[in-house]
Structure formats: structure tokens, C-alpha cells
């Protein structure tokens, strides 16, 4: 303690749901609470996973916790998400995932049948992705002290290429690709959670992306500048973060961004923007202009993709990090998510 004051929480007097939304409030929490205390060159990068050099071996290391509600949803469940999510954090560094840890926090009274179903998903997803769960931990808390099941997974992956995949390597004229439709997972969960009966045709996009990422890196090498999986905060937040890190601006075209009709409709009704909805099986790839056509072909050839598209390009730093040409021909800034995505009220 200094000057008789308590430890500094910066501007945060209380943790709110906003702080977990992956947007501006989350980055403030990270900066004021965590970086203020834990800062080091690896953590300060704030990438999807950390890059470590261990006795000449380069590995990627990442951790993520899963608290999704509902735990079962169209297209997947919390177990599948916990495996794919952490694999994708490794994949965004171009890593070959090799091992996962699995930490479970279970609420007293949680049905064995549901747990078995989730663990089957974990096993199946890990097998399909070619990784093993090599260590784990279980805690059970009294009823009401946690909501059914929370999962933490950490992952370790090998970095087989010899250049960093990071937004700071992006150059003006590089092109920005997305591997498929945006907002599927977020729209699925939002409509399920609220029990709106609007979920017809919606399904989560949870899937592992490491094979597609590796295929791009293997063939195109350093022409691939950076990857990002736009999870919480959605495409918009990820693009703003990447542009900031690159010290450049991105220009994107609304018309080029693939959005499923069902997702667009739910967004209309609830007043949401698909650009801010979470994805669990999509990647942003920034590649050199020359490599873009081939990158798109590689994506299209893989089952993980889902209507990939070039959505924009990097340019010299302008007034705002991300500018969008709207579908009707206007121009506007794209900002990070600010707070939980909330419905409009009239």
C-alpha cells in the first residue's frame, strides 16, 4: 500500500459484465488491472497466444475459459468450444497444436449425463483436431456458486515456421481476408439464451482452424502477415485491434463481408450488428496483395472455410483505424465493441 491507499484498480471500481465482453471495457481491465502488474515483453504483445523460445524450440502457449450459456446449442456445446477455442488461439500464430490441459469447475448437482455428453464432445473434438488432453483438474463448488459447468483449457503448439505472424508485419496495400460468414456463433447463442424462438436455421460455427492456418503459412510463407480469430467483440473489434497494432488504417467494404441471411435477419430484429457478434470458427488473414488470390483459393479448398472473401485492405494510417464503405456507398468509422451487445428498444 502506498500513501495509505488501497491497491489501485485504475478507473475500475467494480467488475461489470461489460468487462468480459471482449470490447473496449475488456481492454481497459486488461491494461489497468493485469498489464499494470504483470507486464513483460511476451504478455505485452497481447496476442491470441504467447510465443516462447525454449532451448531453441519455438512454441505457442495459450489459455482460455469457457462459460457459455446455454451449454448445449445448435452446432456444438461447451466441450467442443473449449477444445476448438484454444486450438484456434494457437492456430492464429500458425502453430501446430500438440497438447491441451482441461480444467473443470462443476456445480454440485450437475447431471452426470450432461457431463458425459460434454466429455464425449471434448474427446471427439480433440481427436478430430489431432491433439491430446495431457493434464487436467476438477473442482466441484456448492450449488448456486457456479452455473452448471465452467471449463478452462490451455494449449501448447509447435511453431514450425521461422517468422512471426503478427499485425505489426502488416504493410500498406496488404489485403484482408475472412474465411467465411460472420456472426453465426453470436447470433445462435443470443437467440438461444433469450429463448426468442428466432433461432430457425442458426447454428454455431465452432471448428478448429489450425489446418487452414498451417496450409496458408506452408505455401505462402512470410507473405502471410497475421491471423486473428474474431471471437468476442466480433470482426469489428479484431480489425480495430489489428490496425492499431499495425500502426495503419484498414479500409473495408460492407458489401464484401459475408453474412448468412438468418444472421442478418436476427440482427435486424434485435438491433444487433453482425460485425460485433462472436465467431468461433472464422479467421481474419492479412496477406500481401500478390498472395491474396492464392490465399483465397487455399481457403476455398478447405472444409473449414465457409464462403471466404477479401473484405478490405491496409492503407497508411488515417484519422481512424478502420473505415468502412457502407453497402449504400457511404463511409463511416468502425469502432471496437463497447459493452455487451444490447438490443435496441424501439
Amino acid at each position, binding site marked *: 500500500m502506498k500513501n495509505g491507499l488501497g491497491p489501485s484498480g485504475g*478507473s475500475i471500481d*467494480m*467488475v*461489470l*459484465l*461489460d468487462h468480459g465482453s471482449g*470490447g*473496449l*471495457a475488456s481492454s*481497459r481491465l486488461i491494461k489497468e488491472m493485469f498489464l499494470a502488474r504483470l507486464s513483460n515483453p511476451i504478455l505485452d504483445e497481447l496476442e491470441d497466444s504467447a510465443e516462447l523460445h525454449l532451448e531453441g524450440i519455438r512454441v505457442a502457449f495459450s489459455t482460455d475459459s469457457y462459460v457459455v450459456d446455454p451449454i448445449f446449442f445448435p452446432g456444438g456445446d461447451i466441450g467442443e468450444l473449449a477444445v476448438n477455442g484454444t486450438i484456434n488461439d494457437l492456430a492464429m500464430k500458425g502453430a501446430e497444436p500438440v497438447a491441451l490441459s482441461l480444467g473443470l469447475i462443476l456445480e454440485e448437482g450437475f447431471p452426470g449425463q450432461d457431463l458425459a455428453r460434454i466429455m464425449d464432445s471434448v474427446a471427439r473434438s480433440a481427436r478430430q483436431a489431432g491433439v491430446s488432453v495431457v493434464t487436467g483438474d476438477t473442482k466441484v463448488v456448492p450449488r448456486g456458486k457456479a452455473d452448471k459447468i465452467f471449463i478452462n483449457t490451455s494449449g501448447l503448439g509447435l511453431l514450425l515456421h521461422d517468422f512471426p505472424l503478427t499485425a505489426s508485419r502488416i504493410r500498406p496495400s496488404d489485403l484482408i481476408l475472412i474465411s467465411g460468414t460472420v456472426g453465426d456463433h453470436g447470433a445462435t447463442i443470443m437467440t438461444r439464451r*433469450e429463448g*426468442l424462438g428466432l433461432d430457425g436455421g442458426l447454428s454455431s460455427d465452432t471448428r478448429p482452424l489450425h489446418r487452414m492456418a498451417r496450409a496458408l503459412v506452408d505455401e505462402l510463407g512470410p507473405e502471410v502477415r497475421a491471423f486473428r480469430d474474431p471471437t468476442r467483440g466480433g470482426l469489428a473489434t479484431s480489425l480495430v485491434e489489428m490496425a492499431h497494432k499495425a500502426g495503419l488504417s484498414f479500409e473495408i467494404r460492407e*458489401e464484401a463481408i459475408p453474412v448468412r*441471411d438468418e444472421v*442478418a*435477419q436476427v440482427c*435486424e*430484429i*434485435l*438491433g444487433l*450488428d453482425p460485425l460485433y457478434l462472436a465467431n468461433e470458427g472464422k479467421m481474419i488473414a492479412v496477406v500481401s496483395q500478390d498472395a491474396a488470390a492464392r490465399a483465397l483459393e487455399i481457403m476455398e479448398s478447405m472444409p473449414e472455410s465457409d464462403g471466404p472473401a477479401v473484405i478490405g485492405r491496409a492503407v497508411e494510417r488515417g*484519422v*481512424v483505424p478502420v*473505415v*468502412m*464503405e*457502407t*453497402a*449504400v*456507398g*457511404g*463511409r*463511416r*468509422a*468502425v*469502432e471496437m465493441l*463497447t*459493452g*455487451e451487445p*444490447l*438490443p*435496441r*428498444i*424501439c
Partner: protein
Amino acid sequence: MPSLVSSAVFSSSISSMDKMDRRERVRLLASAIERELPNVEGRPVTIMEVCGTHTMSIFRHGLRGLLPPGIKLISGPGCPVCVTSQSQIDAAIALSQLPGITVATFGDMLRVPGSSGLSLAKAKAQGADVRMVYSPFDALALARREPWRKVCFLAVGFETTAPVVAATIRAAARVGLENFTVFSCHKTMPKALETLFSAEDVRVRGLLCPGHVSSIIGEGPYRFLPESYGISCAIAGFEADEILLGILSLLRQMASGRPRVENCYPRAVSPGGNPRAIAEMEAVFKAADALWRGLGNIPGSGLEIRDEFSAYDAASRFDLSPPAPEKRASSCICGQVITGKASPADCRLFSRACTPSDPQGPCMVSSEGACAAWFKYGGVRP
């Protein structure tokens, strides 16, 4: 008619329209506006979009950049979260802290700061039972599912939302539900517009009237604006081309010197509005005085629950302190922004002390607030 349902109906008829077609229409309308503007005397021509949904759509589509510099768009008092008085916000927060009470409301209301700095979201983090719902019927369902909770629906909104809330109250009355109440903060639009335009320093010459409120009340309630105040009015939909069509109509009215109410949204708005929705609203609510943020007390501009439904009126079941004079906790100028006297960028707090993740006033909280729109989509001057 529920606002969610009505917007769904509107959008489903729109989404069939080809996207390129819309882009072309926007281009044609923008050039028609540019050609019409020189025929209007006096620059800049100030137009107010009354409704928060218009504000958001204008920003989301980047329409400001498509308009010639001689047109100035300002936001009006049509954001229900923004115009809810500080005393009602404070009363709702106090209510949420009473034992056994569940406050259910629309997501945007959760983060509006009370005068003490607490918000419903912060009260929730401290243990109050506050739930976000998408419709008043969700709150009713909650009350039936959890009969041990006293569920109070915090109702904000205009003529679009009030009929749905009225239907909810009647549904609760039909089954004799005892643990459901409504805290009515509803407001009605025409009297607020009259207050705004009867002031002396009005620069606004044209009014973009809200499509969904108009679908309930029709064209009639706006007629006093051209007749008594010389204000041109256009009822407009919410898509980019529909908004531009409304602006073009306003310029043509001004150029001809004959202000009137033009319905540019006839597929959703009939001249007499929606009599069923009005009847529903009138069965449950009666006009009452209401305190508006930025506009003060406006006689007859609020909706109070009628005596026969007082069992469902939170104001009669709980001690909600009566509207006290508005006190402002900070130097937030939301009140001036709502009335078009200032733009968000004129505020000292804007984008510095006040951001959507740490809002100082409701215009930054609401997804339809002018400050949130400026923050989220502003910053680009093409």
C-alpha cells in the same frame, strides 16, 4: 403492435429488395438532394431527425458524407432511454435494491448512470436482481415462472412500445397475476415536439418524423407543426434510401414555401395510424405530466396507468419518489443534445470522460443515443 414485431415486419419487406438496387437508389436520391438544395433559401438548412433509430441508421450507413455540406442534421428527443428523467432512473435503481424485487427492462436501461453514480448494471453486480428482457411479455413470463419474485417491468418508450406494454398489463390482469407490476416511464411525442418548436431560438426547419411511432399515431398529430410553426415534416422509414427520400421531401417543401406533413413511408404508415394499437394504449394508460431530460416537465406528455389497473402500477404498489426537479451529477450536456441545441462534440466529456463503456449520460448509453452514434461511427469526414 410490438416494436420488435413491427420492425421485423418492416425489414422483411425490405430485405427482398436487391442490394445493388438500393445502392443505386441512394446514389440517385443523393444527387436529387444536391440539385434541390440551391432552390432552398438560407444555409445551412437544419433538419432534425426526431428518432434515435434514424440517428443510428444515418450514421451506420454513412449518410452524412453523402449529403451536400449545406444540410445540417441534428438529433432530436426520440431516444426513449435518453429522455427518461434522472429522477425516474434513480427511482428504478432504488426499487431494484428492495428485497424480493426483480427489475426487468430493456438492455440499454441497465447502464444509465443514476445521480449517485450507481446504475442498474452496478446494482446488479452488487446483488440486486436486474434482468434484461427484449419485450414486456418476457417480463410477464418471468413473473409467472418465478412467482416468489415481485417482478417490475421498467417501461420506457413512445407510442410504439406503449401498446405492447398495455397488452402485457391486460394479459396479467386476465390471469390475475399478483407479482407483476409496470413502472411506466412512457412518453408521447407530439407534445414534446410542440415544446421544442414553440421555443424562441428554433433553427430547425424540417423534421424527419419517426416511421414506427407514426405507424401507431398516423399523420394527424404532426399537422400543427407546419400549420403553427412553419416546420416541414416528412414521415420516413429507416433504410438509407428511405431517409434520403424524407430529406428530399423536406427540401422540396421548403423550396416551394409550403410546409406540410408528407408521408414518405406509406407502406407502413396509414394516415390514421393504427386504431387498434391506440385503443389498446388508451384502455390501460391515461395522459399525465412527464418530466423529460432536457425539456423539463411537459403537461400531458406521459402515460400513467389507469386506476382500474392500479394493481399493476409500480407507482401505486411501491414507494417511487415523485418526480423531483432534475439534478445533474456532472457537466454532461445530454439535455442540450436531445433538444438539438448542441452536438455531442460540443460536450467537454465526449470521448474523454464519457465513452460507451463508461457513460456519463444516457445519450452515450443508449444504442440509439446521439452521443453513442457519434462515438461509434463518427470520426470520418470523407
